[in-house]
C-alpha cells in the first residue's frame, strides 16, 4: 500500500501530541512532508483539514485528513505494515487503549492544572492528581517499555512523562515527579529517550525548558 502515496503531517515542534504521530510514521518507515504550524496564526490548510478542533497534529494521507493524535497513531498502524504499534491480541489491544486514554484523561489535565491554573488551591489539587496518576502508571509498568520489549501505543502516549513533565517541573519549581518516587518510570524514561527513533524527533531540551521558564516568569510578572 505504502509507496508513492503522499503523506503530510501538520504539527508544532514542541507538541507531545504531534510527536506521537511523528514517531508512529517513523517506526513504519513512512516518508512524509512536515508542515510547521503557528498556533496563533493557523494556516488555511489546518482549518480546512481539522475544522472541528482546529488543532495539531493532522495527518494528510493522499489528501484525506486524520485528526486526534491517538486516532492518527492507530490509523498509521493499520494503513502501513511493518512495525506493530498496537498488539495483535484483542485483549492486549484493549489494555493498550485503556492506558493511553488514562494518560490523556488523568496525567495531562492534572499536570496542566498543577502548572497553569491561576488558583493556588487548584494547582495543589492538580499536583496531587498528577502524583496519583503517576503512581498508578508506576505500579502498572512491568517490562522495559509499557509495550514490553519494544515501544508501542502506550509508550508514545506516555512520552510526555519522560520528556515534557520533568521540564515543566524544573521550570515551575513543581513537585509532580521524582526518580526516587517512581523508579520504574525513571528507568523507562531513560530507555525511551534513548530510543533511536524517539531521540531523532524530540525538540532540543534547553529550548523547551527556556519556553516553559518564560511562561512561568510572565505569570509571576503579571501578578
Amino acid at each position, binding site marked *: 500500500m505504502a509507496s508513492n502515496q503522499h503523506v503530510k503531517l501538520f504539527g508544532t515542534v514542541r507538541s507531545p501530541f504531534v510527536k506521537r504521530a511523528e514517531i508512529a510514521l517513523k517506526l513504519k518507515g513512512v516518508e512524509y512532508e512536515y508542515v510547521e504550524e503557528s498556533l496563533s496564526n493557523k494556516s488555511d490548510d489546518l482549518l480546512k483539514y481539522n475544522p*472541528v478542533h482546529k488543532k495539531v497534529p493532522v495527518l494528510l*494521507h493522499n489528501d*484525506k485528513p*486524520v*485528526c*486526534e493524535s491517538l*486516532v*492518527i497513531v*492507530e*490509523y498509521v498502524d*493499520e*494503513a502501513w505494515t511493518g512495525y506493530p504499534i498496537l498488539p495483535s491480541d*484483542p*485483549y492486549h*489491544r*484493549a489494555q493498550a*487503549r*485503556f492506558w493511553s*486514554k*488514562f494518560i490523556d484523561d488523568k496525567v495531562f489535565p492534572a499536570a496542566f492544572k498543577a502548572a497553569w491554573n491561576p488558583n493556588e488551591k487548584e494547582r495543589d489539587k492538580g499536583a496531587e492528581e498528577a502524583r496519583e496518576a503517576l503512581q*498508578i502508571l508506576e505500579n502498572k509498568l512491568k517490562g522495559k517499555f509499557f509495550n514490553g520489549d519494544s515501544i508501542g501505543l502506550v509508550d508514545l502516549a506516555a512520552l510526555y512523562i519522560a520528556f515534557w513533565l520533568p521540564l515543566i517541573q524544573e521550570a515551575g519549581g513543581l513537585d509532580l515527579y521524582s526518580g526516587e518516587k517512581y523508579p520504574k518510570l525513571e528507568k523507562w524514561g531513560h530507555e525511551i529517550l534513548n530510543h533511536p527513533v524517539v531521540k531523532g524527533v524530540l525538540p532540543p531540551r534547553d529550548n523547551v525548558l527556556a519556553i516553559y521558564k518564560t511562561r512561568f516568569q510572565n505569570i509571576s510578572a503579571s501578578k
Partner: protein
Amino acid sequence: MGDEVILLGYWPSQYGMRARIAVEEKGIQYEYKEEDAFNYNKSPLLLEMNPVHKKTPVLVHNGKPICESLIVIEYIDEVWNHKSPLLPSDPYDRAQARFWADFVHRKVYDAAKRIWTTKGEEREGEKNEFIECMKLLEQQLGEKPYFGGDSLGFVDVAFVPFYSWFQVYEKFGNFNMEAECPNIIAWAKRCLQKQSVANTLPDQHKVYDLAIWIRKKLGIE
C-alpha cells in the same frame, strides 16, 4: 463457544448503554449486573475488575476485564468478528469512526452534562455548544440511514444512548431537539427500531425523573 460474558452497568449511564447495545448487536450470551452507581454502592466485583476508575461499564470476558465504553465496543467488535461489524474495514473509515466517537464522547457529553448541572448564562452557553455539536453530527450523518452507513456502526452505538437523555437537555435547556436537529431525531428513532437499542435505552421520563433527583441530592438549584 463456552464464553463467560458479564456486563457491569448502570441503567441511566450512556456509557453502559453503549456496551450493552454492542453486546446485543453481536447476539452474545451475557449476564447483566446492575450497579448502584449513584449511591456509591459499588459491588466487590466492580472494584476488583476496574480498580483504576471504579466505574461502569466493565465487560468481564472469561474473567478478564475490559473497561471504558468505546474500548469495550472495539474489543467486542474484534473478538466477535463474525457478524454485525461495528467498525468499517477500511483504515481511513475506521479513523473517521474513531474521530467522531471521540467527539461524541468528549465534546457532546461535556456540553450535555452541563446543560442540566449549571444555570443561567453558563447553561445557555452549554446549550448552544450542544446544539452546535448536534448540527455537526447531522452534517456527518448526511443522507445515510446510520453513521455506520447501512447498518449500526461505532458512532451510532456511541451516540444513540444520548437519546434517552434528550428530554433532560430539552427541559433544562429550554429548547426542542426536533426543531433544532430533526435529522438527529429521525436517526435516533431509526436506531430504536433495532432490538439491541430498544432493549437498552431507558424511557426518557425515567431518566428525567432521575436527573431531578440527582440535582436535588447534589444541591443544584
